[in-house]
């Protein structure tokens, strides 16, 4: 298995987080659904990594697996390694894992309304995150919570400690979530569709906030899970494109958005109504629908919708291989020696 390293030029000696051959299966009534199938990627310190994909691509499951938050049953991490420095998170005891959660790696979620407990004040919820990992007094924890809430832009934070989640707007709730995640200064922040439930202008504010905090505060790494290619393009350093539980393409944002190689990535980008492009043209479309996780095609996962499909694609699963400069693609047509059709 080829390991996927960070772009060669500025690669730090050792990535902060290495995901190796991760496999997550869910037991459903008709069998086993492999939601994530052999996913490997690295995250460097200080990097913002985007994991992008459509529904059912396995991007959220990948994110949850890193913190071992896959509900079991019905799900199970069946294979793989998740290395934080040298520590394999999957081999930790439960109590050791708890020390990682929220402390080393924190997570924020898509829907800030349901992700916050409706019956506890936000002050209690942020403070709880502090007290779980730091041996300090309640008063100190409260001070830290206030400090963090101020940093994420909650006006008159101390006064609002006793307010409940429903008293905040969507954007403010997501700020509270971010404060709660960052209050222990984690090294990695996993953001699972953090702006999907928010309006465009609010999304912009939240993304700015995340980048700003990363930059000035803890210089943590961020894994940003999203389906919005635009968000990836302007916030991430590198991106992982997932489809059908597998990584299809990995590269820097420059590589992915200026020089995408995988037919799926290409198609996805082409099907967006272009900002600059002419209005009256037909949009490019990827034919067909996203296959259900229960009936993934054999061979290449994308073969049912790919324009360049060959018999080999239908039978044989292509491997993820480097096509140069840290860009990896899972496609037979781009393998060394095979001649790609003109796209």
């Amino acid at each position, binding site marked *: 298995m080829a390991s996927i390293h960070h772009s060669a030029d500025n690669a730090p000696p050792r990535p902060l987080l290495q995901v190796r051959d991760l496999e997550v299966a869910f037991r459903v009534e008709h069998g086993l659904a492999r939601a994530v199938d052999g996913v490997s990627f690295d995250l460097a310190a200080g990097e913002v990594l985007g994991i992008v994909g459509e529904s*059912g691509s396995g991007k959220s499951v990948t994110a949850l697996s890193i913190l071992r938050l896959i509900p079991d049953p019905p799900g199970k991490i069946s294979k793989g390694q998740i290395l934080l420095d040298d520590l394999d998170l999957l081999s930790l005891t439960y109590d050791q894992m708890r020390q990682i959660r929220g402390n080393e790696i924190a997570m924020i979620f898509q829907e800030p309304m349901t992700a916050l407990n409706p019956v506890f004040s936000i002050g209690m919820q942020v403070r709880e995150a502090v007290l779980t990992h730091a041996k300090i007094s309640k008063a100190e924890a409260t001070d830290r919570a206030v400090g963090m809430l101020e940093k994420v832009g909650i006006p008159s934070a101390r006064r609002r400690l006793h307010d409940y989640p429903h008293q905040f707007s969507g954007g403010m709730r997501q700020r509270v979530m971010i404060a709660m995640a960052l209050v222990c200064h984690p090294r990695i922040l996993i953001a699972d569709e953090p702006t999907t439930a928010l309006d465009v202008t609010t999304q912009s504010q939240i993304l700015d906030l995340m980048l700003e905090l990363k930059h000035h505060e803890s210089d943590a790494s961020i894994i940003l899970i999203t389906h919005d290619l635009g968000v990836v393009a302007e916030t991430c350093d590198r991106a992982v494109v997932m489809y059908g539980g597998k990584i299809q393409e990995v590269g820097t944002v420059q590589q992915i958005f200026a020089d995408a190689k995988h037919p799926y990535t290409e198609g996805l980008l082409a099907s967006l109504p272009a900002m600059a492009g002419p209005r009256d043209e037909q949009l490019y479309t990827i034919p067909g629908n996203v296959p259900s996780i229960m009936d993934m095609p054999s061979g290449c996962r994308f073969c049912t919708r790919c324009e360049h499909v060959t018999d080999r694609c239908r039978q044989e699963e292509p491997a993820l291989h480097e096509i140069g400069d840290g860009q990896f693609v899972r496609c037979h047509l781009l393998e060394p020696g095979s001649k790609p059709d003109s796209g």
Partner: protein
Amino acid sequence: MTSSTPKTDDETHASDHRSLSPLQLRGKRFRRLKRGYYSFVLLVSFYALSFFLPLLMNHRAILVQYNGNFYFPAMASYLHDTFSLGQEKVYLAKTFDQTNRSGRPLFGEANYRELQLSFAEKGSGDFVIMPVIPYGPNESFLDLPGTPPHSPSRIHWMGTDDRARDVMVRLTYGFRISITFALLVTVVGYTIGIVVGAVLGYFGRWVDIVGQRFVEIWGNIPFLYTVIILASILGPSFGLLTIILAGFSWVSITYYLRGEFYREKSKDYVAAAIATGEGHLTIILRHILPNALTPIITFAPFAIVSLIISLVSLDFLGYGLPAPTPSWGELLKQAKVNLRVWHLVVFPLGAMFVTLQLVVFIGEAVREAFDPKVQSRLR
């Protein structure tokens, strides 16, 4: 559409190609829940079988051959009593020239058990085929030794009650009555509840505000008081009890249905129906109602349980079905007078327990089939 966590609900991944409606899918899931499904099969079979009770447990013979003629006394009285069919209600003793032991002609209805014995003694080729258990539900065995209630014995497996009637036979007949009663009340009560709930939930606004007040008033009238008062005045009868209980049981359904209608009404498929120009009645009946029935269906088995309990309770208090109707509660009422007669408590309660247990199993399975609680453990 953004969460990539796979849905574990099989409704989204129906793997077989035959299209199943949501209800059919749930039916399929119900059949997979063995305990509930077999309880359902068992209960339905018992209930179906109970309509043949007059041929299984009766003091009247199934078939009598006498002087070359065939008689069907059990069938005749069953048809006559239940469906008003046929002419003969009972065959008199003189039809078979039955005499008592001293040889005098017997008056009144024929005694088929005796007749069977005397035919056998005579050996004339006439015969009597008795039901498996040759006792009637309202038949008093006054010739048994001792005073009633008699303890369980080899002849009367569950003993007799205070009028020397066979407990087992009365319990079995009581089963049919209890289930029939509960089903009838459920159907009537549900119909009222669905109509009221649908109207309140669909039209909302002042209809709802005013309607809810009335429902609340109705719901706060203590049902037992009313039942007892009305039953003692109008004279207890199966029909009256059904109407009264149905009149009270609809209230809780109304709340469920009102809530469902409120929720469903706000969904876009209803907006689509309105935008199509559908009428109120079509929207209520065709569009919303099929989607609003889930909580009611899951609730139904438990409603039946509570109705059977209500009937037993009323009989126990003495305000239930009119007197010689075989009833579980009536046996318990007898036991209350003398608690040492254990078989009048244990067997009726056992019958009720087994029946309700089956219904509860069905209810749990229905609930599970309609709302599978995927218990996922997060740690």
